């Protein structure tokens, strides 16, 4: 057992999966000798060789298209996009092929691939390195969309993503890549890809979030606890398919819900959760469901990026607003 960070959880799972299954290969720009620009694939090429940890030419369409091709032919490719912003050229292959391979061939072909990449802002990165495009991928039928928020969930969910028989978009919240260390046992145990994780039990209010906003959300929960409010915190973890049962069960107990996300609000995952809560017709709801989100603007360059992102203060403020309604 070792104390590891979220990014090391990813690396550990990749190494484990590659040991277990010779059809698993890792590919992407700078993933080999360099071990990835964030070091997520550090040491893997030394361990598994350059035919299983493949430095690709600089071409995202090629990476996505070939990953689809390899996956249909018995390989389990785990492709990396260097940053969220550079997944955009890959959308063609994800939307038009990966997500519908099984359906359009009536199960004759399938696409057991993983596309993993760092997502979100807050590390003073250059332009196009800090977006939160999870809603875009969640809109694509046939894909699973996963975002871990702790070292152990990174490990367990990555293993599940690789073993899953269908395509998985694995988004890594880079702002918390090295935020926390946790004991993770490399036992090959995967975590389920279709459930939310309740991180903290409470009875007055449910805070729902995922990815790096876990950090601010837990801090907000601490502040609210100090004010005597009992807060339940849910990490969504898997965005597609969305485990609404856990969220609905929690909100029907607490009667209040604030959803926190870094992404823009319009047509977002937070909106989907809020809409599903409305759909569920929770008669125990005591206040309107609130969303605390990034603005519906382009992610600003780094000097203003923290002004874009939801702060602890905004989350607490929203929580107090829903708590005032009785």
């Amino acid at each position, binding site marked *: 057992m070792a104390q590891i960070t979220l990014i090391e959880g990813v690396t550990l799972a990749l190494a484990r999966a590659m040991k277990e299954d010779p059809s698993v290969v890792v590919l992407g720009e700078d993933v080999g000798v*360099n071990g990835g620009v964030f070091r997520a694939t550090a040491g893997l090429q030394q361990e598994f060789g350059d035919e299983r940890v493949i430095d690709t030419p600089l071409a995202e369409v090629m990476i996505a298209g070939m990953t689809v091709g390899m996956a249909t032919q018995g390989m389990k490719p785990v492709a990396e996009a260097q940053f969220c912003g550079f997944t955009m050229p890959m959308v063609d292959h994800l939307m038009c092929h990966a997500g519908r391979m099984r359906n359009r061939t009536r199960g004759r072909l399938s696409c057991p691939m993983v596309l993993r990449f760092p997502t979100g802002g807050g590390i003073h990165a250059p332009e196009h390195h800090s977006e939160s495009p999870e809603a875009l991928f969640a809109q694509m039928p046939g894909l699973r969309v996963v975002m871990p928020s702790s070292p152990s969930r990174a490990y367990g969910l990555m293993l599940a993503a690789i073993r899953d028989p269908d395509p998985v978009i694995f988004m890594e919240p880079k702002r918390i890549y090295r935020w926390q260390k946790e004991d993770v046992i490399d036992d090959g145990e995967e975590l389920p890809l279709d459930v939310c994780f309740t991180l903290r039990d409470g009875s007055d209010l449910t805070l729902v979030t995922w990815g790096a906003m876990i950090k601010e959300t837990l801090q907000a929960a601490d502040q609210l606890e100090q004010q005597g409010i009992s807060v339940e915190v849910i990490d969504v973890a898997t965005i597609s398919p969305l485990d609404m049962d856990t969220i609905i069960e929690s909100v029907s107990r607490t009667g209040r819900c604030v959803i926190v996300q870094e992404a823009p609000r319009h047509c977002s995952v937070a909106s989907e959760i809020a809409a599903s809560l409305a759909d569920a017709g929770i008669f125990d709801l005591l206040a309107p469901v609130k969303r605390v989100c990034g603005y519906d603007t382009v992610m600003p360059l780094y000097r203003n990026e923290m002004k874009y992102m939801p702060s602890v203060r905004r989350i607490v403020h929203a929580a107090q607003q829903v708590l005032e309604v009785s």
Partner: protein
Amino acid sequence: MARTVAAFKVDHFQFLGSDGKLLDGQQVPALARDFERLTELYKLMVLTRTFDKKAVALQRTGKLGTYASCLGHEAAHIAIGASMQEEDCFAPMYREYGAQFCRGVKMSDVLLYWGGDERGNDFSGPKHDFAWCVPIATQCLHAAGAAMAYKLRQEPRVAVSVVGDGGSSKGDFLEAINAASAWKLPLVLVIVNNQWAISVPRSKQNNAATLAQKGIAGGLPSIQVDGNDLIACLWAMDKAVTAARQGKGAFVIEMMTYRLSDHTTADDARRYRPQDEVDDAWDHEPIARLRRYLIDQQVWDDEREQTLLEESAETVQQAADEYLDIVANKPQPVTAMFDYMYAELPHDLAEQRAYAEEFPEDGGHH
């Protein structure tokens, strides 16, 4: 029986050796004797390198964000900028500051951009030029589109774009070649081949002998030049830009140079690149050889060099001070992220803008 239906060759041009001497047995272009132009451009190369060093120092001391150095690319970049007219259009990637300085972009603009301030992208210089372009190779198609606009309006203007050895693997670059060939566009595509795409060496991009031949495959005249030889770079650019302006179509130029720095300040090239390769590359870098040539021609000397270094340091320091003053004393308000989203702010964004104004110190809304 087979007959050859197409054959190609790629010429490599170099006039100035690494030792600063003109290569023997070559016809040397007239511009090799245009000492006024060459010394002006030499000064810009030195200024660019001085700027680059300062920018890295600012990053290292926490005053600038991630920065992409242009160390070693000065001849290539300055030749690109110097060959263009103001009305031409430049679509850069992210490290061609030398070309941009030729076009009137200010050093403080560059610092603002890498300093995380949007006003850097609203730079001085031609208002029709494109901003820096991080999504690799996409700029090539924007330049092709600009060239299309000039062609359709029958304006004698040229679009110039730059791509790296890595970027030349992307479809955007190949599609720009194809479009320029199909429509005979006034476009010059420059591959600045600095041998590395972050940690991936040129040899891993593909097995082609040159990158220039990708242009030939698409039907464009294409050449390779020594990218550390200002005379060769400038000669090739002048030729290509002039031909494009005269309606003769597009051109691909591969400039062979070397990235003497880390990829960016966020990178550590020692992880993947042997130091002796870098040491060797220093023997061929562009500034020393041009200086030697100019000194041999008796149009440059140590005294002028000393003055140039002092003046460059002063100019760069002023730019750094200007940048630091702007970010310290005139920061962009939080509302800046809303104000250029649309020509007219839609009502939902106006609401968010008002909210942000009310809580300027932290983000989020509900």
